[in-house]
């Protein structure tokens, strides 16, 4: 147990570690010659974009690599032991004993059919020798649940994972990890699936536990914000290689590697300075009045349906060339709002005035015509394109549906593809041949094909890696400028909102809690809830320091070029 480890010996030492991918992978080595150390009571962040091999390392530490992926050279030492040299029993003692691990998806990481209490007990029983009495075990479970800040532990240990919120589940995972006072905690993207506020709490919790137990923490993340908040030291990975490592402040303040710099820059920042002037016309382009929507989830016979309020009296206006950000946590009804405006979801009440008509009253052909100038870009670029349809067709289909000749539509499609930074030849290829970022560009091109006046971007960049995200954001900014597009930008990421929006609407449980210009909302939030959200922005304290925002404008062009190169 952790007592056995001498004061300052590293709890984890990774030495020239290389991990091979199975034949036919996109590269021979997932991880190449990586070395770093974690001292007790130290948080080390492994940062990198998807495919950088960061979680491979984490899995390698506990010998949890998937079949076919193997360590080819180098060594790992956990609390003085080399896991690869341990026999089954030894390895089992190490796992969950000296080194515990938590994962990205708390729901799928917990056994759905076991009460959480049992799942914690199991962890204790598997390791404590001599085996403690059930009474002791139960008491221990209670303390753990309290320590991870879960309310009403007695009831909670009896409940099943699906009955808990995402945050609670992750807390349970942590409780399990903490059960045997590990010397090392490995957290693989522990907050990526969570809302900002929850994310903040979970990070705090991990940090507190670290402090009071002096354990070492290996935190895998893609978010420099997180790094800025919790990391003592940082290891930046790209394509399985360490591009840079050092203390958090060094790396963040003057990154040595260009890649590191790019990543840091890519973190969206409020450009409160230069809000471009909007010519506010008397009559708005789009006007939403008192939208109402309640979802009723049927729960079998005789049981009252569960009601979820997705929109309650939501009103908003949008003027030409203006960008309105709709922010809120999951379940706040922000996406529903976008879908209702598109008439993909039927509102219970309210009006959607656009192009001189109330969309809500339109049906069939009339709706089809009215909706033409109103387009949407969805979150998941993989689900947004018909896998069986050529990219060109996908874009041309819209205009053709409104009578444009095929030839003309295709020509237009090629132009658009070029415009969004893809080659015209892309038109003749199928979606699966493109990366996520490229697909999202295609989706944008498709939306623009109908020359919309309002574009709704529903979490349009959330699924993308941070650098790609930045490129797409920049693209949208430009298009808005040159097409005088009005945009409704739906996002959970306030930093993005801050970067792109003129005005911001904050949603909570289907209600507008705060509305105002980006500047107002970000600098002088009126509502407590808004304040919490802002505080929760990872790395805010760091990134919003003067001197960072300034450079923002200059960076953009550069980024777009690199964006196009990347394609």
């Amino acid at each position, binding site marked *: 147990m952790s007592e056995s480890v001498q004061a300052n010996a590293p709890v984890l030492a990774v030495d020239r570690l290389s991990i091979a991918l199975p034949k036919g992978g996109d590269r021979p080595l997932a991880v190449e010659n990586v070395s770093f150390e974690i001292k007790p009571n130290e948080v080390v962040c492994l940062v990198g974009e998807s495919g950088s091999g960061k979680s491979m390392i984490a899995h390698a530490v506990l010998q949890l690599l998937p079949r076919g992926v193997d360590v080819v050279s180098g060594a790992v030492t956990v609390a003085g032991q080399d896991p690869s040299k341990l026999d089954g029993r030894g390895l089992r003692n190490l796992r969950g004993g000296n080194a515990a691990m938590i994962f990205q998806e708390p729901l799928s990481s917990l056994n759905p059919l076991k009460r959480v209490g049992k799942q914690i007990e199991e962890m204790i029983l598997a390791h404590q020798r001599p085996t403690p009495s059930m009474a002791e075990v139960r008491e221990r479970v209670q303390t753990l649940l309290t320590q991870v800040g879960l309310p009403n532990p007695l009831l909670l240990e009896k409940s099943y994972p699906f009955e808990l919120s995402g945050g609670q589940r992750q807390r349970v995972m942590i409780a399990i990890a903490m059960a045997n006072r590990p010397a090392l905690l490995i957290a693989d993207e522990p907050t990526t699936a969570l809302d900002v506020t929850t994310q903040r709490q979970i990070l705090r919790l991990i940090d507190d536990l670290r402090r009071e137990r002096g354990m070492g923490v290996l935190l895998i993340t893609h978010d420099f914000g997180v790094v800025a908040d919790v990391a003592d030291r940082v290891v930046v990975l790209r394509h399985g290689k360490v591009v840079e490592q050092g203390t958090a402040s060094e790396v963040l303040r003057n990154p040595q590697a260009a890649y590191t710099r790019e990543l840091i820059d890519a973190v969206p920042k409020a450009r409160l300075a230069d809000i471009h002037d909007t010519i506010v016309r008397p009559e708005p382009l789009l006007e939403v009045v008192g939208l109402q929507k309640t979802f009723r989830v049927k729960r079998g016979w005789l049981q009252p349906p569960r009601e979820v309020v997705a929109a309650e009296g939501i009103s908003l206006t949008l003027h030409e060339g203006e960008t309105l950000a709709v922010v809120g946590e999951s379940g706040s009804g922000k996406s529903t709002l976008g879908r209702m405006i*598109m008439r*993909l979801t039927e509102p219970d009440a309210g009006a959607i005035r656009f192009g001189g008509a109330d969309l809500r009253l339109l049906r069939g052909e009339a709706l*089809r*015509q009215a*909706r*033409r100038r*109103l*387009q*949407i870009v*969805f*979150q*998941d670029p993989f*689900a*947004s*394109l*018909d*896998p*069986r*349809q050529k990219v060109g067709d*996908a874009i041309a*289909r*819209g205009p053709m*549906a*409104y009578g444009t000749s095929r030839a003309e539509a295709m020509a237009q499609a090629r132009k658009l593809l070029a415009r969004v930074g893809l080659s015209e030849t892309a038109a003749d290829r199928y979606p699966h041949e493109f990366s996520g970022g490229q697909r999202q560009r295609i*989706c944008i091109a*498709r939306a623009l*094909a*109908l020359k919309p006046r309002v574009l709704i971007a529903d979490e349009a960049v959330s699924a993308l890696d941070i650098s790609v995200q930045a490129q797409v954001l920049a693209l949208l900014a430009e298009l808005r400028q040159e097409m005088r597009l009005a945009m409704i930008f739906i996002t959970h990421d306030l930093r993005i909102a801050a970067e792109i929006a003129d005005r911001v609407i904050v949603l909570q449980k289907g209600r507008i809690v705060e509305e105002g210009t980006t500047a107002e909302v970000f600098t002088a939030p009126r509502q407590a809830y808004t304040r919490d959200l802002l505080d929760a922005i990872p790395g805010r304290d760091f990134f919003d320091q003067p001197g960072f925002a300034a450079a923002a404008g200059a960076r953009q062009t550069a980024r777009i070029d690199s964006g196009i190169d990347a394609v």
Partner: protein
Amino acid sequence: METVRAFLRHPSGMIGLVLLLIVVVVAIIAPIMFPVSPWEMVGAPFTPPGEDGLWLGGDTLGRDVAAGVAYGARVSLLIGIASALAAMAIGVVVGAISGYFGGKVDLVLMRMTELFQTIPAFVLAILLVATFNPSLLTIILTIGAVSWPPLARLTRAEFLRLRHREFVEAAQCQGERTWRIVLGHILPNAISPILVVTSLTVATAILLESALSFMGLGDPNLMSWGFMIGAGRTVIRNAWWMSVFPGLAILVTVLAINLFGEGLSDVLNPRVSRRRS
């Protein structure tokens, strides 16, 4: 092309394909292999296999079992495929409607589907065939009528899955018309699992047909495998070959189709192949 190449690399799938081809070929060249009708009494009753030219033996009336097996392939395949298609026709229409429109329509149609699934399929089949008297048509329709529910459910599930996929909604927002969306986007993306299940339905249809004619509810003018086993059952102690060989024929055919179908589903979409089985 891609999928074809993938399939060629699928071992069990290929075994299935080869076996299936053999059966098909036999079915096609049956009249060349055996010019005389399988009903013709060419030898002495109960001729054991190999004797006077009947290498699979003769039956109670001295008819050539080998010829029967060969011609039986035609009947089994015909009925199997036809009724599977019938089932698909019903299933896809029902499933598509209730999957795309949902709501009350969905409720009603699915209740109906459940009803059809509740009544033991084979017992229902017996009832239907006996009710409308066994003939090629009634048998095909009957088997179709008891086999469609799974297809309806699958189609419905696929439609529900695709109905709110972003690319479908995108198409909607782009002003494409409903029928175009259904035929152009949803169906093409739903069709492969449907085809897979249909191909597997062929197998179950063949089994169902054989069971029916075994129970004496086959078309008396068709030399089908089930009928042969049924005729051989009572004389199993005098002439084991009468029931053994047609049975093997069924086994091989069904096995072939299953292997083929699963190979297909593995290649086309692993998702469904996991759901089924």
